[in-house]
């Protein structure tokens, strides 16, 4: 990674202070090394290639105070908020407050699943992932035992805090032993514009394990940086989907490594971006073993003055012969000022592979709008119908149909709110 030493920004100075404070209370060589990696780059600017379209240094004026570990009173408040709250998915729910796992707010986990305070290592080279490692309060790992097959998804609920201005760092490991099968739904809820969130989910899939992960960023933090790391052993399968419909600046960065032969990864997502919001999805899929398959399918709807980013890089290492990779990204712009930056990339070092990528940016098809209008459907309803179809097609690819409906409901709600705007 290229290093540009410049005068630290106000936010960077605050982060250094926050880290020093942390170190004084609880010194750790691993954290110190992670902070050194962060500090070598600092908050990324356009000159850091992977962050080219999201200049975090420019947009993050200050680092908000780190949220303290939840007190019993905080837990009581959270309990009240959870009462009567409609759940997104069936199955057990694990609640995180301020990045900490709160056993007393969480459901019991099914047989074969355990949650322990264990650090999942961050193995990618990225300044914000390094910052997460340096500052996250505690690290939890959910383990699924060999051969365990979970019938229902496990929900990880990140509950935002009512405080006006805070930052929160959380890190969760998910480890599936050989042959295990499990689904996870990570919901980010309740954060307001004053919140800055840096979260990491690190998945390790053993031989033949199958995992699905669905992330929903539907609340409205000022900053949401989410690092997802997934490493797949032999014949493992990983399916992921991310819905982003809120947040002033969101960055989902997903690093997948196909480390075992004949492993499969299928990634997808839908970003709904309006106002002056910015949403960045950046993928790196590394094929390090032969016979792997990866599919990426992302869509975005960009309105008003919003900015979308999709960067996808597929790297096929020399050993990864017979790799089959295909990446697609499509965006619809609804306003003349809306922007979408698309950067698909392939780096192929093996000679016997099938890899392709495609990216399109378009407006709604006026022929389609006209056809619907010609039947008496109002212009705004016609557009909403077409957008619901565009987003819905992407959601419908999720195999677990019980998750399709709630995701489609979020899409419909976003479109309804859009119609109500002047």
């Amino acid at each position: 990674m290229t290093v540009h030493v410049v005068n630290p920004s106000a936010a960077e100075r605050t982060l250094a202070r926050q880290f020093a404070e942390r170190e004084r209370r609880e010194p750790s060589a691993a954290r110190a090394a992670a902070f050194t990696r962060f500090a070598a780059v600092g908050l990324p600017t356009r000159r850091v290639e992977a962050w080219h379209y999201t200049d975090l240094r420019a947009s993050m004026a200050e680092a908000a105070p780190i949220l303290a570990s939840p007190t019993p009173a905080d837990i009581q408040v959270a309990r009240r908020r959870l009462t009567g709250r409609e759940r997104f998915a069936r199955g057990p729910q694990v609640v995180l407050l301020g990045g900490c796992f709160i056993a007393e707010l969480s459901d019991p986990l099914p047989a074969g699943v355990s949650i322990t305070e264990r650090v999942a290592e961050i193995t990618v080279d990225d300044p914000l992932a390094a910052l997460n490692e340096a500052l996250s309060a505690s690290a939890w790992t959910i383990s699924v035992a060999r051969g365990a097959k979970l019938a229902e998804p496990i929900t990880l609920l990140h509950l935002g805090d009512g405080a006006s201005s805070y930052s929160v760092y959380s890190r969760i490991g998910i480890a599936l032993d050989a042959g295990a099968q499990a689904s996870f739904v990570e919901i980010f809820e309740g954060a307001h514009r004053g919140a800055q969130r840096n979260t990491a989910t690190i998945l390790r899939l053993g031989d033949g394990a199958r995992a699905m992960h669905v992330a929903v960023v539907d609340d409205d933090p000022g900053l949401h940086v989410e690092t997802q790391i997934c490493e797949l052993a032999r014949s493992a399968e990983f399916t992921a989907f991310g819905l982003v419909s809120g947040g002033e600046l969101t960055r989902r960065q997903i690093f997948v490594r196909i480390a075992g032969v004949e492993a499969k990864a299928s990634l997808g997502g839908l970003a709904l971006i309006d106002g002056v919001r910015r949403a960045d999805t950046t993928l790196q899929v590394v094929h390090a073993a032969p016979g792997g398959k990866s599919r990426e399918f992302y869509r975005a709807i960009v309105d008003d003055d919003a900015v979308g980013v999709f960067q996808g890089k597929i790297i096929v290492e020399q050993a990864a012969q017979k790799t089959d990779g295909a990446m697609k990204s499509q965006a619809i712009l609804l306003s003349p000022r809306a922007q979408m930056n698309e950067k698909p990339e392939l780096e192929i070092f093996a000679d016997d592979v099938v890899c392709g990528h495609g990216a399109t940016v378009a407006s709604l098809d006026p022929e389609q709008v006209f056809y619907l209008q010609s039947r008496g459907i109002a212009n705004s309803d016609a557009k909403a119908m077409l957008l619901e179809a565009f987003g819905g097609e992407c959601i419908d690819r999720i195999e677990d149909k019980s998750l399709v409906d709630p995701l489609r409901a979020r899409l419909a709600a976003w479109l309804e709110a859009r119609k109500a705007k002047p």
Partner: protein
Amino acid sequence: MLEIKSLSVSIEDKQILDNLSLTVNAGEVAAIMGPNGSGKSTLAYVLAGKPAYEVRAGEILLDGENLLELKPTERALRGLFLAFQYPTEIPGVAAMTFLKAALNAQRRARGENDLTTPDFMRRVREAAQALKIDQEMLRRPLNVGFSGGEKKRFEVLQMALLAPRVGVLDETDSGLDIDALRIVAEGVNALRDPKRAFLVITHYQRLLDYIRPDVVHVMARGRIVATGGPELALELERNGYRDYAEEAA
């Protein structure tokens, strides 16, 4: 009922319709025939309000109201229906969802309640049976993967459900085999009504064997160059459009 008065239309500075006038009375089926490029489809699109056409002069009155001042949606709500020559494919929108949205939009505009699902299903089933449309087709995305004939039958199904004041059929016969043509024509004939008018645009006389017109207009170079009874269509079938194309020049 439908009066087109001195209509001149261009697209990208090319004049397509030239001072065209035409009246269709309630209960009437008027056919418009004409060679390729005479402006027939432009007329159909301008009636429905497709953007990109520039109306330079004239009026289109439906029951006395100037349609040119209305948006496409409002025209449909006033009872204008265009059966498209090339129905638009809309991936991701199920044909049924679309039908329900259209039907309810028109009901709401009339101050009526939305149809209940069983009532809606029954109406669709009846209309689909008459047009020999498979229920399976209605579950597919709108016009996606429909054959040419299925698309045309689905246009007529929509017309049957929406029960417009004026039906404009833009080359509904193109791409149909003889059996499908008969089914579609029967579908249109079933909708003939003293309070309803049709404008049937076609190249060929064949369709008019099944949908008997009251009036036949010949269109060439963007205007109506001849008007007559059904016998005019037969004459065109024998002699072609050459005489009229020259006359208009």
